[in-house]
């Protein structure tokens, strides 16, 4: 009989905050696409005598994350020096928060794709500065200091996750949340969101945790899933082969998609932490905290719940429409203007608007079509000013021209003809032009009614109200 194992996973994430300037100087924080060593100054390159100054925007964004994670806030937290010598750390120490960080504890609730809710507890959140980038070219080591001093939040979870799937979903939901809060671009490929995973296994039913291995340097959500699965499999293989799990540090090699052992047993480096004397404690006043609380948006998981319970959306729709804040805000705006069946708006959103965002790669907020436009189009369809097909085409026309839908309907003559006499004249013409089909119908092939309606619509280039045409045709075909 084979033993079943349960995996236990804790994640350490580094989140690059999207502040304009760096953590402790006024250099531009985001250097994506910039030449190396162009966003630097005496402070972030560790010139003798230069001093750091705390960027308040970093504190604000870190605080928002603490609130979103239900963490306890330290109203006075401290910056410490983490001392180590490396070429991409120009000061010889990293400014970070060690024993009294801005946030302690808390939890993050998120939904798995099957609807199951998972609660992952947070150990702590702290602010710190990033180091520079090192690139090896042959024997030469190149240092880019653009990234030195970029603000990060390091967030460490408790070992609450139990599968690669849960870990990957945690990251997906975290990424969604970070963008939702507007505090990080959270692009893993650009290393705005970095992840290390601690993985251990234990026999099912056992209360003791196994020895954990740390996987470093995982740079995409798919890689997180693969790396953790490989590691769980490796640990099971080891145990089944009668070996003990040793405390390794493992690196994920993205090129070969393999795990590679970096070193056995973490030799606990001594970072000689002590308070950074150049910075005052980070004091958060009650007023400041209150102002940030007031700024906090409704979180995606709460909004999804409200879309279901208050707006009557199916859970699938609610998930899709809360994938990002833009889409969700747009949807709500349309609903407010439209003031009708929210599910009907949801269908238009998912079928038309999200089709365009998928095709163009634009965010909803970048589209030319506005919430008012979409509400107007749905209204026109409801009032039979246009038919559904025209409505769908109109979405694309608004998007490509930027013109208002009413204007486009007028310009292109897209309005439905609801004038009975015009439709009646066309129906009469179609019936008399097609005596064979009329005969077949009358002989009982009633499915031909659709063909007749189609002919009328084609002749009238879609402008006829199909319901009206059908009624007239039924009358004409019966009458003879």
């Amino acid at each position, binding site marked *: 009989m084979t033993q079943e194992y349960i995996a236990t996973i804790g994640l350490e994430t580094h989140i690059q905050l999207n502040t304009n300037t760096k953590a402790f100087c006024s250099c531009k924080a985001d250097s994506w696409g910039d030449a190396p060593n162009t966003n630097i100054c005496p402070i972030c390159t560790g*010139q*003798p005598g230069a*001093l750091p100054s705390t960027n308040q925007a970093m504190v604000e964004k870190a605080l928002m994350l603490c609130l979103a994670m239900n963490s306890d806030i330290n109203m006075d937290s401290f910056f410490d020096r983490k001392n180590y*010598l490396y070429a991409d750390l120009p*000061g*010889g120490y990293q400014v970070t928060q060690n024993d009294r960080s801005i946030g302690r504890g808390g939890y993050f609730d998120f939904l798995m794709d099957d609807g199951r809710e998972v609660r992952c507890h947070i150990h702590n959140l702290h602010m710190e500065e990033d180091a520079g980038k090192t690139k090896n070219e042959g024997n030469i*080591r190149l240092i880019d200091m653009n990234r030195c001093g970029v603000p990060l939040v390091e967030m460490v979870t408790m070992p609450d996750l139990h599968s690669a799937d849960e870990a990957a979903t945690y990251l997906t939901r975290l990424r969604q949340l970070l963008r939702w809060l507007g505090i990080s671009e959270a692009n893993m490929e650009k290393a705005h969101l970095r992840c290390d995973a601690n993985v251990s296994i234990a026999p099912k039913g056992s209360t003791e945790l196994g020895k954990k291995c740390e996987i470093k340097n995982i740079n995409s959500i798919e890689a997180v899933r693969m790396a953790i699965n490989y590691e769980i499999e490796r640990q099971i293989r080891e145990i089944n082969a009668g070996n003990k799990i040793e405390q390794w540090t493992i690196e994920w090699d993205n090129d070969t998609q393999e795990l590679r052992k970096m070193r056995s047993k973490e030799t606990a480096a001594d970072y000689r*932490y002590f308070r950074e004397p*150049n910075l005052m404690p980070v004091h958060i006043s009650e007023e400041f905290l209150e102002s940030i609380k007031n700024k906090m948006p409704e979180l995606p998981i709460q909004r999804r719940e409200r879309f279901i319970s208050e707006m009557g959306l199916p859970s699938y729709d609610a998930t899709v429409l809360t994938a990002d804040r833009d889409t969700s805000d747009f949807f709500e705006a349309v609903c407010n203007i439209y003031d009708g069946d929210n599910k009907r708006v949801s269908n238009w959103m998912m079928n038309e608007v999200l089709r365009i965002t998928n095709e163009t790669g634009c965010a909803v907020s970048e589209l030319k079509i506005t919430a008012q436009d979409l509400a107007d189009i749905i209204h026109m369809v409801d009032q039979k000013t246009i038919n559904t097909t025209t409505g769908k085409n109109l979405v694309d026309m608004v998007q490509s021209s930027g013109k208002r839908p009413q204007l486009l309907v007028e310009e292109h003559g897209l309005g439905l003809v609801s004038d009975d006499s015009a439709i009646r004249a066309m129906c009469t013409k179609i019936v008399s032009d097609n005596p064979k089909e009329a005969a077949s119908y009358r002989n009982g092939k009633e499915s031909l009614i659709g063909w007749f309606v189609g002919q009328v619509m084609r002749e009238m280039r879609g402008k006829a109200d199909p319901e009206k045409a059908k009624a007239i045709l039924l009358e004409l075909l019966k009458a003879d």
Partner: protein
Amino acid sequence: MTELIELSAVEQAALIREKKISSVELLEATLAQVEKVDGRSGSLEPYVEQPEDLEKVHAFLLIVRDHAMAKAKEVDRKIAAGEPVGALAGVPYSAKDVYCTKGIRTTAASRILEGWKPPYSSTVIEKMDQADAVLFGKVNLDEFTFGGTTETTAFKPTVRNPWALDRVPGGSSGGSAAAVSACEGAISLGTDTGGSIREPAAFTGIVGLKPTYGRVSRYGVIPFASSMDTMGPLTRTVSDSAFVLKEIAGFDPRDNTTVRVPVDDYLADLQKGIKGLRIGISPDYLKITYLDDQGNYASAPVDPEIEASVWKAADLFRDLGAEIIEDVPMSNTKYSVPAYFVISRIEAYSNLQRFDGLKYGHTTQQSVKDMYDLYYKSRGEGFGYQAKLRLLTGMFASQEKFYEKYYRRAQRARALMRRDFDEAFNPQGKYRIDAILTPSTPSPAFRFGDAVASDSLLIQFADQFTTPMNFAGTPGISFPCGLSSSGLPIGLQITGYDYCESKILRAAFAYEQATLDADWRKIKPVVLR
């Protein structure tokens, strides 16, 4: 008329403003004095002592004649044109070589910074420039300010005391103190982490002010121990100290530890006198406390001449209308030296980590195996003995396993020392004092080599009376009060509460005015005789 170079900065500035002399003229006179008394500048070249070296001061590492001349001419032009000028317009000054000066070599008296020209200037240098003072040179110091004698500099010959050329000028602002004492400029900017302004001021018979931590920006000054470093002036008169402080004090957005407390008009305030000022004297500042071989606290008296000068000054202050409060307890003073050792070394070690021989300064010319080998060799060659000692002791004391034993305990001692000040100065408390009068140092200037070779407690604990203010963050001023029987200057210290520079300047000024005609004031340093 007294020679231009002997005038105070206040007097020099007045003459320039009144167009009685030009800034260029004053600069020429100052440079001539340097030429006359300073001898060769300290350098990194292998040092072979020449007989004439023993007769000179050697305060300067670098004279920036062209830079200074351009500024002096600009000041003269502005004054001639009737344009507004800063308070210190045309007054030449020097700066300890830890103040970063844009485009001008800055060494911290260490080989590790060889050839470095800072890409920016420190805030204080910028403020002095805005006040139209004329920077004409950078002066020697203990390497990275690590020392109290200026002997640890990598740039030899080191500075000699203008009063006794076989003695040290004190340190680490020894170059500043010697330069001002020898009339090579009326002002020099120093730094004080444990007494590095006040001790050399006392040893060379001049005035040294250590402002409150946070009063003067540290931005752009190469740090020793960042939680204690303060920047201040060394001058020959108390008025000059007030004059300069007014210009360099204030909030700086680039230094998070500066504060928005208003800057007083220190110079004008001097005239307010000291009637009713409550000046404390503490028995804890009249003895050296140390741990004996058994690990028990023991104490030794300060030099009797020095103790006598404290009591004599107390009498004078009383005559001038101050109240003297004796027996103010400052019982935690005894922790200052050991706690200072721990905290200053841990911070110093961390602050020295950025000097890796890669980004700036000295890079080894030996072949290297890898990056760490490059660090090892560059730092091995670049740092002097004292810097290495502080690095090693700092690394030792900062180990995580010793965190409680050293760093935390030292921080607690620091808090206790702070409490001594809070209680003594508490306006509702038992003592309600405005200032404390102490010796600046337990003894006058010692001989070269004694700081290392001598086992004299007075030398080993030379900074016991000055480090508590760096711990507490409070201001202190050392001012001359006479000469010892062997003709060496003696300094007294007045220390006050946070941001009360105005009060301690007033007290020192009152003392100075009351002793203007004292016989000892007529005696000049040997290099000026």
